[in-house]
Protein backbone atom coordinates (compact mmCIF):
# COMPACT_ATOMS: atom_id res chain seq x y z
CA UNK A 1 0.00 0.00 0.00
CA UNK A 2 1.70 3.19 -1.12
CA UNK A 3 1.74 6.27 1.08
CA UNK A 4 -0.11 9.26 -0.26
CA UNK A 5 1.48 12.69 -0.07
CA UNK A 6 -0.83 15.58 -0.86
CA UNK A 7 0.75 18.80 -2.09
CA UNK A 8 -1.44 21.84 -2.42
CA UNK A 9 -3.70 23.47 -3.47
CA UNK A 10 -2.11 26.11 -1.27
CA UNK A 11 1.41 25.15 -0.40
CA UNK A 12 4.59 27.14 0.18
CA UNK A 13 6.36 25.26 -2.59
CA UNK A 14 3.80 26.19 -5.21
CA UNK A 15 3.64 29.63 -6.72
CA UNK A 16 0.13 29.17 -8.01
CA UNK A 17 -2.72 27.13 -6.58
CA UNK A 18 -2.79 23.57 -7.87
CA UNK A 19 -3.13 20.17 -6.28
CA UNK A 20 -0.81 17.20 -6.58
CA UNK A 21 -1.52 13.90 -4.92
CA UNK A 22 1.50 11.66 -5.11
CA UNK A 23 1.60 8.00 -4.17
CA UNK A 24 4.99 6.94 -2.97
CA UNK A 25 6.78 3.80 -1.86
CA UNK A 26 9.64 5.04 0.27
CA UNK A 27 11.11 7.80 -1.83
CA UNK A 28 9.90 6.49 -5.17
CA UNK A 29 6.79 7.89 -6.82
CA UNK A 30 4.52 5.10 -8.02
CA UNK A 31 1.42 7.02 -8.88
CA UNK A 32 -0.31 10.27 -8.54
CA UNK A 33 -3.02 12.66 -9.42
CA UNK A 34 -2.90 16.20 -10.65
CA UNK A 35 -5.79 18.55 -10.14
CA UNK A 36 -6.11 22.04 -11.53
CA UNK A 37 -8.93 24.51 -11.53
CA UNK A 38 -8.22 26.69 -8.54
CA UNK A 39 -7.33 29.67 -10.69
CA UNK A 40 -10.46 29.67 -12.82
CA UNK A 41 -11.46 33.22 -13.75
CA UNK A 42 -14.08 32.81 -16.45
CA UNK A 43 -12.10 34.71 -19.07
CA UNK A 44 -13.70 32.98 -22.06
CA UNK A 45 -17.16 33.98 -20.95
CA UNK A 46 -16.07 37.52 -20.15
CA UNK A 47 -14.57 37.80 -23.62
CA UNK A 48 -17.99 37.29 -25.20
CA UNK A 49 -19.34 40.28 -23.27
CA UNK A 50 -16.76 42.79 -24.47
CA UNK A 51 -16.11 44.37 -27.84
CA UNK A 52 -13.46 42.95 -30.17
CA UNK A 53 -11.08 45.73 -29.26
CA UNK A 54 -11.47 45.40 -25.50
CA UNK A 55 -10.80 41.66 -25.61
CA UNK A 56 -7.22 42.38 -26.73
CA UNK A 57 -6.50 43.70 -23.24
CA UNK A 58 -8.43 40.88 -21.65
CA UNK A 59 -6.49 38.27 -23.63
CA UNK A 60 -3.28 39.84 -22.42
CA UNK A 61 -4.35 39.16 -18.88
CA UNK A 62 -4.73 35.41 -19.34
CA UNK A 63 -1.07 35.14 -18.42
CA UNK A 64 1.36 37.75 -17.20
CA UNK A 65 4.57 36.28 -18.57
CA UNK A 66 3.31 35.53 -22.08
CA UNK A 67 0.91 38.44 -22.56
CA UNK A 68 1.95 39.63 -26.04
CA UNK A 69 1.68 36.04 -27.20
CA UNK A 70 -2.00 36.03 -26.28
CA UNK A 71 -2.76 39.42 -27.76
CA UNK A 72 -0.87 38.61 -30.97
CA UNK A 73 -2.74 35.35 -31.40
CA UNK A 74 -6.07 37.03 -30.67
CA UNK A 75 -5.48 39.94 -33.05
CA UNK A 76 -4.32 37.59 -35.80
CA UNK A 77 -7.47 35.52 -35.41
CA UNK A 78 -9.73 38.59 -35.52
CA UNK A 79 -7.77 39.94 -38.49
CA UNK A 80 -8.50 36.66 -40.26
CA UNK A 81 -12.19 37.21 -39.50
CA UNK A 82 -12.00 40.75 -40.85
CA UNK A 83 -10.01 39.69 -43.96
CA UNK A 84 -7.31 42.29 -43.34
CA UNK A 85 -3.53 42.16 -43.27
CA UNK A 86 -1.54 44.41 -40.92
CA UNK A 87 1.12 46.62 -42.55
CA UNK A 88 4.65 45.27 -42.94
CA UNK A 89 6.14 47.51 -40.28
CA UNK A 90 3.53 46.32 -37.78
CA UNK A 91 4.36 42.70 -38.54
CA UNK A 92 8.06 43.32 -37.89
CA UNK A 93 7.41 45.20 -34.65
CA UNK A 94 5.17 42.38 -33.49
CA UNK A 95 7.96 39.90 -34.17
CA UNK A 96 10.50 41.99 -32.27
CA UNK A 97 8.29 42.35 -29.19
CA UNK A 98 7.27 38.70 -29.42
CA UNK A 99 10.86 37.48 -29.42
CA UNK A 100 11.94 39.95 -26.74
CA UNK A 101 9.22 38.53 -24.59
CA UNK A 102 10.42 35.00 -25.35
CA UNK A 103 13.85 36.03 -24.10
CA UNK A 104 12.48 37.37 -20.83
CA UNK A 105 10.24 34.34 -20.36
CA UNK A 106 13.10 31.89 -20.93
CA UNK A 107 15.47 33.79 -18.65
CA UNK A 108 12.76 33.88 -16.00
CA UNK A 109 12.32 30.15 -16.43
CA UNK A 110 16.05 29.56 -16.03
CA UNK A 111 15.94 31.52 -12.81
CA UNK A 112 12.97 29.57 -11.47
CA UNK A 113 14.52 26.27 -12.53
CA UNK A 114 17.78 27.07 -10.77
CA UNK A 115 15.86 28.13 -7.69
CA UNK A 116 13.96 24.83 -7.64
CA UNK A 117 17.16 22.83 -7.47
CA UNK A 118 18.64 25.14 -4.85
CA UNK A 119 21.13 26.99 -7.04
CA UNK A 120 20.15 30.46 -5.90
CA UNK A 121 23.29 32.22 -7.10
CA UNK A 122 22.49 31.33 -10.68
CA UNK A 123 18.88 32.32 -10.06
CA UNK A 124 20.00 35.82 -9.12
CA UNK A 125 22.30 35.99 -12.16
CA UNK A 126 19.51 35.07 -14.56
CA UNK A 127 17.07 37.55 -13.14
CA UNK A 128 19.67 40.28 -13.22
CA UNK A 129 20.17 39.67 -16.95
CA UNK A 130 16.42 39.49 -17.47
CA UNK A 131 16.18 43.06 -16.21
CA UNK A 132 17.92 44.27 -19.40
CA UNK A 133 15.18 42.72 -21.51
CA UNK A 134 12.41 44.12 -19.35
CA UNK A 135 14.01 47.53 -19.85
CA UNK A 136 13.69 47.06 -23.62
CA UNK A 137 10.00 46.23 -23.22
CA UNK A 138 9.49 49.26 -21.01
CA UNK A 139 11.19 51.51 -23.53
CA UNK A 140 9.16 50.23 -26.50
CA UNK A 141 5.77 49.61 -24.94
CA UNK A 142 5.76 51.78 -21.82
CA UNK A 143 5.15 48.86 -19.50
CA UNK A 144 7.08 45.95 -18.11
CA UNK A 145 4.30 43.36 -18.32
CA UNK A 146 0.90 43.43 -20.04
CA UNK A 147 2.47 45.46 -22.79
CA UNK A 148 -0.57 46.40 -24.85
CA UNK A 149 1.43 46.78 -28.06
CA UNK A 150 -1.05 45.06 -30.38
CA UNK A 151 -4.19 46.50 -31.82
CA UNK A 152 -6.53 45.24 -34.50
CA UNK A 153 -4.79 45.77 -37.82
CA UNK A 154 -1.38 46.75 -36.53
CA UNK A 155 0.55 47.93 -33.50
CA UNK A 156 0.15 50.96 -31.26
CA UNK A 157 3.73 52.06 -30.77
CA UNK A 158 6.65 52.60 -33.09
CA UNK A 159 10.26 51.51 -32.76
CA UNK A 160 12.30 54.65 -33.28
CA UNK A 161 15.97 54.95 -34.21
CA UNK A 162 16.88 55.52 -30.55
CA UNK A 163 14.96 52.41 -29.56
CA UNK A 164 16.80 50.48 -32.22
CA UNK A 165 20.19 51.56 -30.93
CA UNK A 166 19.10 50.80 -27.38
CA UNK A 167 17.86 47.30 -28.29
CA UNK A 168 21.01 46.51 -30.28
CA UNK A 169 23.22 47.53 -27.34
CA UNK A 170 21.14 45.41 -24.96
CA UNK A 171 21.24 42.43 -27.33
CA UNK A 172 25.04 42.44 -27.13
CA UNK A 173 24.83 42.32 -23.32
CA UNK A 174 22.25 39.53 -23.43
CA UNK A 175 24.28 37.47 -25.87
CA UNK A 176 27.29 37.75 -23.61
CA UNK A 177 25.35 36.68 -20.54
CA UNK A 178 23.56 33.90 -22.45
CA UNK A 179 26.98 32.47 -23.24
CA UNK A 180 27.76 32.61 -19.54
CA UNK A 181 24.51 30.79 -18.76
CA UNK A 182 25.41 28.18 -21.37
CA UNK A 183 28.73 27.70 -19.61
CA UNK A 184 27.02 27.25 -16.23
CA UNK A 185 24.54 24.71 -17.60
CA UNK A 186 26.92 22.65 -19.67
CA UNK A 187 29.92 22.64 -17.35
CA UNK A 188 28.55 22.55 -13.81
CA UNK A 189 28.77 18.92 -12.68
CA UNK A 190 26.43 19.28 -9.73
CA UNK A 191 23.78 20.87 -11.89
CA UNK A 192 24.14 18.16 -14.50
CA UNK A 193 23.77 15.50 -11.81
CA UNK A 194 20.48 17.02 -10.73
CA UNK A 195 18.89 17.25 -14.18
CA UNK A 196 20.46 14.62 -16.43
CA UNK A 197 18.26 11.53 -17.04
CA UNK A 198 15.63 12.86 -14.64
CA UNK A 199 12.02 13.30 -15.67
CA UNK A 200 12.40 11.53 -18.98
CA UNK A 201 9.62 11.86 -21.52
CA UNK A 202 10.25 9.53 -24.43
CA UNK A 203 9.54 10.52 -28.02
CA UNK A 204 6.67 8.01 -28.15
CA UNK A 205 5.07 9.40 -24.99
CA UNK A 206 5.58 12.93 -26.21
CA UNK A 207 3.71 12.12 -29.40
CA UNK A 208 0.93 10.27 -27.57
CA UNK A 209 0.43 13.07 -25.05
CA UNK A 210 0.52 15.72 -27.80
CA UNK A 211 2.95 17.91 -25.87
CA UNK A 212 4.07 21.13 -27.51
CA UNK A 213 6.87 23.64 -27.40
CA UNK A 214 10.21 23.09 -25.68
CA UNK A 215 8.78 20.05 -23.89
CA UNK A 216 8.14 18.35 -27.24
CA UNK A 217 11.36 19.59 -28.83
CA UNK A 218 13.32 18.29 -25.84
CA UNK A 219 11.91 14.84 -26.60
CA UNK A 220 12.88 14.97 -30.26
CA UNK A 221 9.49 15.96 -31.70
CA UNK A 222 10.21 18.49 -34.42
CA UNK A 223 7.36 21.02 -34.20
CA UNK A 224 7.43 24.80 -34.22
CA UNK A 225 4.55 26.95 -35.43
CA UNK A 226 6.90 29.78 -36.32
CA UNK A 227 8.45 27.58 -39.00
CA UNK A 228 5.53 25.28 -39.87
CA UNK A 229 2.89 27.95 -40.30
CA UNK A 230 4.71 31.30 -40.36
CA UNK A 231 2.93 34.42 -39.15
CA UNK A 232 3.99 38.05 -38.55
CA UNK A 233 7.49 38.54 -39.98
CA UNK A 234 8.68 34.96 -39.48
CA UNK A 235 8.58 34.07 -43.21
CA UNK A 236 11.20 36.79 -43.76
CA UNK A 237 13.71 35.91 -41.05
CA UNK A 238 16.06 32.97 -40.83
CA UNK A 239 16.26 30.82 -37.74
CA UNK A 240 16.72 27.26 -36.66
CA UNK A 241 14.49 25.10 -34.49
CA UNK A 242 16.67 23.44 -31.85
CA UNK A 243 15.89 19.79 -31.17
CA UNK A 244 17.21 17.54 -28.39
CA UNK A 245 16.66 13.79 -28.38
CA UNK A 246 17.10 12.76 -24.73
CA UNK A 247 13.79 13.93 -23.33
CA UNK A 248 15.13 14.62 -19.85
CA UNK A 249 15.17 17.94 -17.99
CA UNK A 250 18.62 18.77 -19.34
CA UNK A 251 17.34 18.37 -22.90
CA UNK A 252 14.44 20.76 -22.28
CA UNK A 253 16.85 23.21 -20.68
CA UNK A 254 19.24 23.04 -23.63
CA UNK A 255 16.37 23.60 -26.07
CA UNK A 256 15.44 26.78 -24.23
CA UNK A 257 19.08 27.86 -24.09
CA UNK A 258 19.49 27.46 -27.84
CA UNK A 259 16.20 29.26 -28.41
CA UNK A 260 17.64 32.28 -26.59
CA UNK A 261 20.39 32.55 -29.20
CA UNK A 262 17.88 32.06 -32.02
CA UNK A 263 15.66 34.80 -30.57
CA UNK A 264 18.59 37.20 -30.40
CA UNK A 265 19.29 36.42 -34.06
CA UNK A 266 15.65 36.98 -35.04
CA UNK A 267 15.50 40.33 -33.22
CA UNK A 268 18.70 41.51 -34.91
CA UNK A 269 17.46 40.49 -38.36
CA UNK A 270 14.05 42.10 -37.82
CA UNK A 271 15.64 45.34 -36.61
CA UNK A 272 17.96 45.38 -39.61
CA UNK A 273 15.17 44.84 -42.13
CA UNK A 274 12.52 46.94 -40.37
CA UNK A 275 10.48 48.36 -43.29
CA UNK A 276 9.11 51.89 -43.38
CA UNK A 277 5.39 52.48 -43.50
CA UNK A 278 2.28 52.97 -41.42
CA UNK A 279 1.85 51.29 -38.04
CA UNK A 280 -1.75 50.24 -38.35
CA UNK A 281 -4.70 50.31 -40.68
CA UNK A 282 -6.84 53.42 -40.62
CA UNK A 283 -10.23 51.80 -40.98
CA UNK A 284 -11.41 48.43 -39.85
CA UNK A 285 -14.27 46.46 -41.37
CA UNK A 286 -16.75 44.52 -39.26
CA UNK A 287 -15.74 40.91 -38.83
CA UNK A 288 -17.65 38.56 -41.07
CA UNK A 289 -19.99 36.04 -39.52
CA UNK A 290 -18.09 32.81 -39.25
CA UNK A 291 -15.23 31.26 -37.37
CA UNK A 292 -11.46 31.51 -37.38
CA UNK A 293 -8.46 29.79 -35.85
CA UNK A 294 -5.20 31.40 -34.93
CA UNK A 295 -1.95 29.71 -33.95
CA UNK A 296 1.26 31.15 -32.58
CA UNK A 297 4.31 29.58 -31.01
CA UNK A 298 4.25 30.82 -27.43
CA UNK A 299 7.26 30.43 -25.16
CA UNK A 300 5.77 27.30 -23.66
CA UNK A 301 4.45 25.83 -26.88
CA UNK A 302 1.71 26.23 -29.41
CA UNK A 303 -1.11 28.57 -28.44
CA UNK A 304 -4.45 28.31 -30.19
CA UNK A 305 -7.36 30.73 -30.39
CA UNK A 306 -10.75 29.92 -31.83
CA UNK A 307 -13.23 32.74 -32.34
CA UNK A 308 -16.77 32.46 -33.64
CA UNK A 309 -18.37 35.64 -34.84
CA UNK A 310 -21.97 36.47 -35.65
CA UNK A 311 -21.12 39.66 -37.50
CA UNK A 312 -21.73 41.96 -34.54
CA UNK A 313 -19.13 43.90 -32.56
CA UNK A 314 -18.76 41.21 -29.93
CA UNK A 315 -17.36 37.70 -30.39
CA UNK A 316 -19.87 34.93 -29.91
CA UNK A 317 -17.36 32.43 -28.59
CA UNK A 318 -13.68 32.64 -27.71
CA UNK A 319 -11.82 29.44 -27.00
CA UNK A 320 -8.26 29.55 -25.74
CA UNK A 321 -6.06 26.45 -25.78
CA UNK A 322 -2.88 27.31 -23.95
CA UNK A 323 0.28 25.20 -24.17
CA UNK A 324 0.24 24.41 -20.46
CA UNK A 325 -3.05 22.53 -20.85
CA UNK A 326 -1.42 19.84 -22.95
CA UNK A 327 1.98 19.97 -21.31
CA UNK A 328 0.53 19.35 -17.86
CA UNK A 329 -0.61 15.92 -19.08
CA UNK A 330 3.01 14.94 -19.42
CA UNK A 331 3.82 15.66 -15.77
CA UNK A 332 2.76 12.28 -14.43
CA UNK A 333 4.66 10.10 -16.92
CA UNK A 334 7.71 12.24 -16.16
CA UNK A 335 7.36 11.84 -12.41
CA UNK A 336 6.75 8.08 -12.24
CA UNK A 337 9.80 6.28 -10.91
CA UNK A 338 11.56 9.44 -9.77
CA UNK A 339 12.12 10.55 -6.18
CA UNK A 340 10.14 13.18 -4.31
CA UNK A 341 13.12 15.53 -4.29
CA UNK A 342 12.97 15.71 -8.08
CA UNK A 343 9.30 16.67 -8.18
CA UNK A 344 9.81 20.47 -8.00
CA UNK A 345 12.28 20.58 -10.88
CA UNK A 346 10.18 18.18 -12.98
CA UNK A 347 7.19 20.45 -12.39
CA UNK A 348 9.24 23.47 -13.30
CA UNK A 349 10.79 21.84 -16.36
CA UNK A 350 7.66 22.14 -18.48
CA UNK A 351 7.26 25.76 -17.36
CA UNK A 352 3.69 25.23 -16.19
CA UNK A 353 1.38 28.18 -15.99
CA UNK A 354 -1.59 27.39 -13.79
CA UNK A 355 -3.51 30.53 -14.54
CA UNK A 356 -3.13 29.75 -18.25
CA UNK A 357 -4.42 26.28 -17.68
CA UNK A 358 -7.42 26.81 -15.51
CA UNK A 359 -10.11 27.17 -18.04
CA UNK A 360 -10.41 23.39 -18.05
CA UNK A 361 -9.84 20.79 -15.42
CA UNK A 362 -7.72 17.82 -16.26
CA UNK A 363 -7.76 14.51 -14.54
CA UNK A 364 -5.21 11.76 -14.41
CA UNK A 365 -4.99 8.82 -12.07
CA UNK A 366 -1.95 6.92 -10.98
CA UNK A 367 -1.44 3.66 -12.76
CA UNK A 368 -0.57 1.55 -9.71
CA UNK A 369 -2.90 3.38 -7.41
CA UNK A 370 -5.76 1.68 -5.61
CA UNK A 371 -7.51 4.92 -4.73
CA UNK A 372 -9.48 6.47 -7.48
CA UNK A 373 -11.72 8.55 -5.30
CA UNK A 374 -10.52 11.84 -6.69
CA UNK A 375 -11.30 10.90 -10.27
CA UNK A 376 -14.82 9.83 -9.45
CA UNK A 377 -15.30 12.96 -7.37
CA UNK A 378 -14.33 15.11 -10.28
CA UNK A 379 -16.39 13.08 -12.70
CA UNK A 380 -19.43 13.56 -10.51
CA UNK A 381 -18.69 17.22 -10.23
CA UNK A 382 -18.32 17.93 -13.90
CA UNK A 383 -20.86 15.60 -15.39
Amino acid sequence: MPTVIPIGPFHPALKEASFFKLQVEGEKIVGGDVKFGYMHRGIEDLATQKTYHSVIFLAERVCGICNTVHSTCYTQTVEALMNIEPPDRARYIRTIVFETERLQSHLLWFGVGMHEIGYDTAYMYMWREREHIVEILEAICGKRVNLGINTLGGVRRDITVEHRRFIEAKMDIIEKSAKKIAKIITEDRILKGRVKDIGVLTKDDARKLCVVGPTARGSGVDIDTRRDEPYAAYPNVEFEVPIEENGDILARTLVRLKEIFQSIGIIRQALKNLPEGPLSLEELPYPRAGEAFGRVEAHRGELLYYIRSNGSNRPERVKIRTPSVVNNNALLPMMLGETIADVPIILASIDPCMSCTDRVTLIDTGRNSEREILLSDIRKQFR
Partner: protein
Amino acid sequence: MKKNILLEALRSLANPSTTKYPKQPYVPTDGYKGAAEYDKDKCVGCGACAQECPPGAITYEDTESTRKLRLNYGLCSFCGRCEEICPWDAIHLTKKFELAVYDRKDAETGIDVPFFECIDCGRIFLPEPQMRASLERVEKTLAKYKIPKEDLVHLISVCPRCAFSVKNMPERRMFMRRLVEAKADA
Protein backbone atom coordinates in the same frame (compact mmCIF):
# COMPACT_ATOMS: atom_id res chain seq x y z
CA MET B 1 36.37 29.71 -6.46
CA LYS B 2 37.11 32.43 -3.91
CA LYS B 3 38.58 34.56 -6.67
CA ASN B 4 35.30 34.38 -8.61
CA ILE B 5 33.25 35.40 -5.60
CA LEU B 6 35.53 38.35 -4.95
CA LEU B 7 35.40 39.38 -8.60
CA GLU B 8 31.63 39.25 -8.65
CA ALA B 9 31.40 41.23 -5.40
CA LEU B 10 33.69 43.93 -6.73
CA ARG B 11 31.77 44.09 -10.00
CA SER B 12 28.49 44.48 -8.15
CA LEU B 13 29.96 47.24 -5.99
CA ALA B 14 31.20 49.14 -9.02
CA ASN B 15 28.09 48.55 -11.12
CA PRO B 16 25.16 47.65 -8.86
CA SER B 17 22.11 46.01 -10.42
CA THR B 18 19.68 47.44 -7.86
CA THR B 19 18.96 50.99 -6.72
CA LYS B 20 18.09 52.42 -3.30
CA TYR B 21 14.55 52.94 -4.49
CA PRO B 22 12.56 54.98 -1.95
CA LYS B 23 15.51 57.30 -1.26
CA GLN B 24 16.54 57.48 -4.87
CA PRO B 25 13.31 57.98 -6.84
CA TYR B 26 12.74 55.95 -9.97
CA VAL B 27 12.11 57.97 -13.11
CA PRO B 28 10.28 55.97 -15.78
CA THR B 29 11.26 56.19 -19.41
CA ASP B 30 9.42 58.45 -21.86
CA GLY B 31 6.17 56.97 -23.00
CA TYR B 32 5.62 55.15 -19.73
CA LYS B 33 2.02 54.15 -19.12
CA GLY B 34 1.23 55.42 -15.65
CA ALA B 35 -1.88 56.83 -14.04
CA ALA B 36 -4.17 58.64 -16.46
CA GLU B 37 -5.18 62.22 -15.81
CA TYR B 38 -7.75 64.56 -17.36
CA ASP B 39 -6.87 67.86 -18.95
CA LYS B 40 -9.39 70.26 -17.42
CA ASP B 41 -9.14 72.76 -20.28
CA LYS B 42 -9.71 70.28 -23.04
CA CYS B 43 -12.21 67.75 -21.66
CA VAL B 44 -15.72 68.34 -22.99
CA GLY B 45 -17.36 65.51 -21.09
CA CYS B 46 -18.49 63.47 -24.09
CA GLY B 47 -17.86 60.18 -22.24
CA ALA B 48 -16.08 58.38 -25.07
CA CYS B 49 -13.44 57.16 -22.59
CA ALA B 50 -16.13 55.70 -20.32
CA GLN B 51 -17.65 53.84 -23.23
CA GLU B 52 -14.39 52.35 -24.50
CA CYS B 53 -12.49 51.64 -21.24
CA PRO B 54 -11.75 47.87 -21.44
CA PRO B 55 -11.92 47.10 -17.69
CA GLY B 56 -14.68 49.64 -17.07
CA ALA B 57 -12.59 51.82 -14.78
CA ILE B 58 -14.02 55.06 -16.16
CA THR B 59 -17.65 55.76 -15.34
CA TYR B 60 -19.83 58.82 -15.47
CA GLU B 61 -22.79 59.95 -13.48
CA ASP B 62 -25.17 62.72 -14.54
CA THR B 63 -26.40 64.93 -11.72
CA GLU B 64 -28.69 67.94 -12.06
CA SER B 65 -26.10 70.41 -13.24
CA THR B 66 -22.87 68.47 -13.88
CA ARG B 67 -21.60 65.31 -15.49
CA LYS B 68 -19.16 63.55 -13.15
CA LEU B 69 -16.50 61.53 -14.97
CA ARG B 70 -14.60 59.27 -12.58
CA LEU B 71 -11.51 57.13 -13.21
CA ASN B 72 -10.91 54.47 -10.58
CA TYR B 73 -7.23 53.57 -10.35
CA GLY B 74 -8.10 50.35 -8.56
CA LEU B 75 -9.78 49.04 -11.70
CA CYS B 76 -7.54 50.76 -14.24
CA SER B 77 -5.27 48.47 -16.24
CA PHE B 78 -3.13 51.31 -17.66
CA CYS B 79 -3.66 50.14 -21.22
CA GLY B 80 -3.89 53.65 -22.63
CA ARG B 81 -7.08 53.03 -24.59
CA CYS B 82 -8.67 56.24 -23.24
CA GLU B 83 -5.73 58.31 -24.49
CA GLU B 84 -6.01 56.60 -27.86
CA ILE B 85 -9.77 57.04 -28.23
CA CYS B 86 -10.24 60.59 -26.85
CA PRO B 87 -11.41 62.83 -29.74
CA TRP B 88 -10.41 65.97 -27.83
CA ASP B 89 -6.93 64.88 -26.70
CA ALA B 90 -8.03 65.55 -23.13
CA ILE B 91 -6.81 62.47 -21.18
CA HIS B 92 -3.19 61.47 -20.92
CA LEU B 93 -1.22 58.74 -19.21
CA THR B 94 1.34 60.31 -16.90
CA LYS B 95 4.54 58.90 -15.44
CA LYS B 96 2.96 58.51 -12.01
CA PHE B 97 3.14 54.97 -10.69
CA GLU B 98 3.15 55.27 -6.91
CA LEU B 99 -0.58 55.04 -6.42
CA ALA B 100 -0.91 53.38 -3.00
CA VAL B 101 -3.44 55.13 -0.77
CA TYR B 102 -4.86 54.55 2.70
CA ASP B 103 -8.45 55.22 1.74
CA ARG B 104 -9.99 53.49 -1.22
CA LYS B 105 -11.88 56.64 -2.15
CA ASP B 106 -8.64 58.51 -2.75
CA ALA B 107 -7.61 56.15 -5.54
CA GLU B 108 -9.45 57.99 -8.24
CA THR B 109 -9.32 61.03 -10.40
CA GLY B 110 -12.08 62.75 -12.27
CA ILE B 111 -13.57 65.82 -13.73
CA ASP B 112 -16.90 67.61 -13.31
CA VAL B 113 -18.28 69.01 -16.52
CA PRO B 114 -21.17 71.50 -16.32
CA PHE B 115 -24.29 70.75 -18.29
CA PHE B 116 -25.92 73.06 -20.77
CA GLU B 117 -29.55 73.91 -20.16
CA CYS B 118 -32.04 74.12 -22.99
CA ILE B 119 -32.84 77.82 -23.42
CA ASP B 120 -36.50 77.03 -24.03
CA CYS B 121 -37.46 74.47 -21.40
CA GLY B 122 -34.43 74.51 -19.09
CA ARG B 123 -33.84 70.78 -19.35
CA ILE B 124 -30.21 69.58 -19.37
CA PHE B 125 -29.19 67.71 -22.50
CA LEU B 126 -25.51 68.16 -23.37
CA PRO B 127 -22.29 69.06 -21.53
CA GLU B 128 -21.65 72.74 -22.04
CA PRO B 129 -18.05 72.50 -23.34
CA GLN B 130 -19.10 69.81 -25.79
CA MET B 131 -21.68 72.14 -27.29
CA ARG B 132 -19.14 74.93 -27.53
CA ALA B 133 -16.57 72.65 -29.11
CA SER B 134 -19.10 71.28 -31.60
CA LEU B 135 -19.96 74.81 -32.64
CA GLU B 136 -16.30 75.59 -33.19
CA ARG B 137 -15.91 72.49 -35.31
CA VAL B 138 -18.75 73.40 -37.67
CA GLU B 139 -17.69 77.05 -37.86
CA LYS B 140 -15.37 76.45 -40.78
CA THR B 141 -17.97 74.55 -42.75
CA LEU B 142 -20.55 77.26 -42.13
CA ALA B 143 -18.09 79.93 -43.25
CA LYS B 144 -17.67 78.02 -46.50
CA TYR B 145 -21.42 78.40 -47.13
CA LYS B 146 -21.34 82.04 -45.98
CA ILE B 147 -23.66 81.39 -43.05
CA PRO B 148 -22.76 83.32 -39.86
CA LYS B 149 -22.22 81.21 -36.74
CA GLU B 150 -24.76 83.17 -34.76
CA ASP B 151 -27.60 81.83 -36.89
CA LEU B 152 -26.91 78.36 -35.60
CA VAL B 153 -26.51 79.24 -31.93
CA HIS B 154 -30.18 79.32 -31.12
CA LEU B 155 -30.88 76.14 -33.05
CA ILE B 156 -28.39 73.98 -31.18
CA SER B 157 -29.15 75.63 -27.83
CA VAL B 158 -32.51 73.88 -27.63
CA CYS B 159 -32.89 70.30 -26.54
CA PRO B 160 -33.95 67.69 -29.13
CA ARG B 161 -37.49 67.75 -27.84
CA CYS B 162 -37.86 71.52 -28.14
CA ALA B 163 -36.15 71.56 -31.51
CA PHE B 164 -39.08 69.70 -33.04
CA SER B 165 -41.71 71.80 -31.31
CA VAL B 166 -44.14 73.82 -33.41
CA LYS B 167 -42.50 77.06 -32.31
CA ASN B 168 -39.01 76.13 -33.44
CA MET B 169 -39.87 74.17 -36.56
CA PRO B 170 -39.98 77.08 -39.07
CA GLU B 171 -36.56 78.37 -38.06
CA ARG B 172 -35.12 74.90 -38.30
CA ARG B 173 -36.57 74.32 -41.75
CA MET B 174 -35.35 77.68 -42.97
CA PHE B 175 -31.85 76.85 -41.83
CA MET B 176 -31.91 73.49 -43.59
CA ARG B 177 -33.09 75.15 -46.76
CA ARG B 178 -30.25 77.70 -46.57
CA LEU B 179 -27.77 74.87 -46.18
CA VAL B 180 -29.14 72.97 -49.16
CA GLU B 181 -29.17 76.08 -51.34
CA ALA B 182 -25.64 77.04 -50.30
CA LYS B 183 -24.48 73.54 -51.16
CA ALA B 184 -26.18 73.67 -54.54
CA ASP B 185 -24.47 77.00 -55.27
CA ALA B 186 -21.11 75.66 -54.30
